């Protein structure tokens, strides 16, 4: 067989998450080019087929179905919002194909809503909190944390996860507030934050909201003498430039940082920058890695047959820019080392690390 192996990518190329979709595409394109240049997968080339899901699960399912049925793809990846990942997972089950997400970090995807046809190669929310809480406990005695999240389910559950991890390590809670998603002006909340006199502010706002939040915190001096922490999506290479100096000192827990000091990563970052004139972020890196995951599984199974590949994927270890990852068989969640990274002078620097086994948490999937 020499026909190419077709991999479907359903990702938001327009809409709210277009920026993330861009990183996904860059990572995948780079990986496919490298794999094909090195002879492909079992002698077959990888061919990526893109569909825009507009960050809307209803569109995502339609597009996924199209790729499975009309596009005849063997494997599918790229979904960003967890709603899309969950819905597309169902389509995969119905079509007896496999998918992997490289971005969605809602715990449920590999816990209570796990699916035999869905894998996750990126770190989930719980892992990120674990790494960050660990770093906070080691640097701040008696941390008094104020929580500020975007007011929707994901923002709230991210705050809740970190709060649990932080309180588990002895931190106190100074207060919490949830601002609407796409909030324009955070100054109305600053009164509350000042009044609570926190030593740490943890936030789970993301994307464009972060730019405003940080700019305004600096404008009002809210972040003076306070350590600002946040979720992995809070400050990324997409919004870092726009935030500028206001981001300095920010720390988050992630599964990837361009500053990871290894030969593999240095090469990856260099290749990525050469191809895309932009640094990779965690989404780009995990999307890059997913094709090597698939490649390893297919080569192990010596087939693209769904059942055989699934078996091969379970427990599979494969190399990624951030080091070797292991796919846990019980819930299809990848295990990996987690990092605490800090923004300094517009660059992410690694300031702490938690081993994979300590970060991953229990297997809560009971479907398989």
């Amino acid at each position: 067989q020499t026909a190419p192996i077709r991999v479907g990518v359903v990702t938001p190329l327009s809409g709210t998450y277009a920026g993330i979709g861009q990183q996904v595409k860059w990572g995948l394109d780079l990986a496919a080019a490298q794999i094909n240049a090195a002879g492909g997968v079992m002698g077959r080339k990888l061919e990526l087929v893109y569909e825009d899901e507009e960050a809307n699960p209803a569109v995502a399912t339609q597009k996924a179905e199209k790729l499975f049925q009309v596009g005849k793809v063997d494997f599918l990846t790229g979904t960003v919002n967890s709603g899309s990942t969950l819905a597309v997972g169902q389509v995969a089950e119905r079509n007896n194909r496999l998918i992997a997400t490289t971005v969605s970090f809602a715990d449920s995807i590999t816990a209570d809503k796990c699916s035999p046809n869905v894998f996750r190669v990126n770190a989930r929310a719980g892992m990120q909190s674990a790494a960050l809480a660990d770093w906070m406990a080691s640097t701040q005695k008696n941390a008094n944390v104020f929580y500020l999240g975007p007011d929707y389910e994901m923002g709230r559950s991210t705050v809740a996860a970190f709060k649990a991890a932080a309180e588990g390590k002895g931190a106190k809670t100074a207060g919490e507030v949830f601002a609407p998603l796409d909030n324009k002006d955070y100054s109305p909340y600053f009164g509350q934050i000042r009044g609570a006199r926190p030593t740490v502010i943890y936030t789970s706002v993301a994307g464009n909201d972060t730019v405003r939040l940080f700019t305004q915190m600096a404008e009002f001096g809210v972040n003076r003498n306070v350590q600002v922490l946040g979720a992995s999506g809070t400050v990324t290479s997409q919004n870092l430039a726009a935030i500028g100096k206001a981001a300095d000192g920010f720390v988050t827990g992630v599964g990837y940082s361009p500053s990871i000091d290894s030969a593999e990563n240095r090469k990856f970052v260099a290749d990525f920058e050469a191809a895309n004139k932009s640094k990779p972020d965690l989404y780009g890196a995990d999307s890059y890695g997913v094709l090597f995951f698939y490649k390893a599984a297919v080569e192990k199974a010596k087939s693209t047959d769904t059942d055989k590949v699934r078996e091969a994927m379970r427990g599979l270890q494969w190399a990624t820019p951030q080091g070797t990852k292991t796919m846990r068989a019980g819930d299809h969640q990848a295990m990996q080392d987690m990092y605490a990274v800090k923004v300094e002078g517009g660059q992410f620097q690694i300031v702490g690390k938690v081993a994979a086994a300590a970060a991953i948490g229990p297997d809560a999937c009971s479907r398989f």
Partner: protein
Amino acid sequence: MLDWLQFVLAPQVVNGLSIGVAVVLMALGLTIIFGLLDVINMAHGEFYAIGAYAALALIGMGLPFWWALALTPLLMAALGYATERALIQRVFNSKDRHTLTLLLTFGIAIILEDILKIVFGANPMRIEQPISGATEMFGLFFPNYRLFLMAVGAAVIAVVWAVVFRTRLGAMVRAAAYDRHMAASLGVPVSVVYAGTFAFGVALAGLSGVLLAPIYSVFPTMGRDFVLIAFSVVIIGGMGSIKGAVIAGLLLTQVQSISSLYTSPVWSDPLLFGIMVLVLMWRPHGLFGRLGHG
């Protein structure tokens, strides 16, 4: 108690005020275009975004912020004029003007947003604040740029009001909006008036875009939800009423700002909407009716 007034309530009120001015500027453009042309400009938010991007581009070319502030409204007016002449004018005389122009500007909005994404990318950008520092007043900490924003906003509002209600130009525009044939027969150059009015509204949106770019970030969909608040303000104030937009804009942002002290912001939208419904039940045309039509 005094502490609470000074350190909790007072900053909240003043911050609310600066947001209020921003919202009023947006609402003003909307309400003028609606009140005078009977057009619901669904692309208003995109014009606001284009204003911010235009300033960004001008600054990128090496111009100082103040030049960008002055030039952007002019560029936006030209864009608005062209849009009206090329597109909106074509459906303006249909009897379904309301619906058709709403849908048309909706289509324009989709296109503009995507063009911004192609040209500038989806990632957020920002303009540095041209005025830095903060003023301490009565123990309150207040960024200077916001003070400037409020002053400019107030001046623009005053000028707009005077033009619409105190000049023959304003009367001409309102007449042309209601009855193009009769107005034309009195010598009003209706096509020019329509396009000019639209251009004026668009220029206002662009101006808000530049003014707000230094505090809010700049990205292609930046106008989308901002325009929602502006719409509620316009409805509550009465579509087409300038006075209504100003009063409702300031009032609503205060309600939001103060209520955020006590309630979860999940309730901020339902609260806003609840107020809107209550106002409309009490006064079906908003607080201050409308100015263009009977």
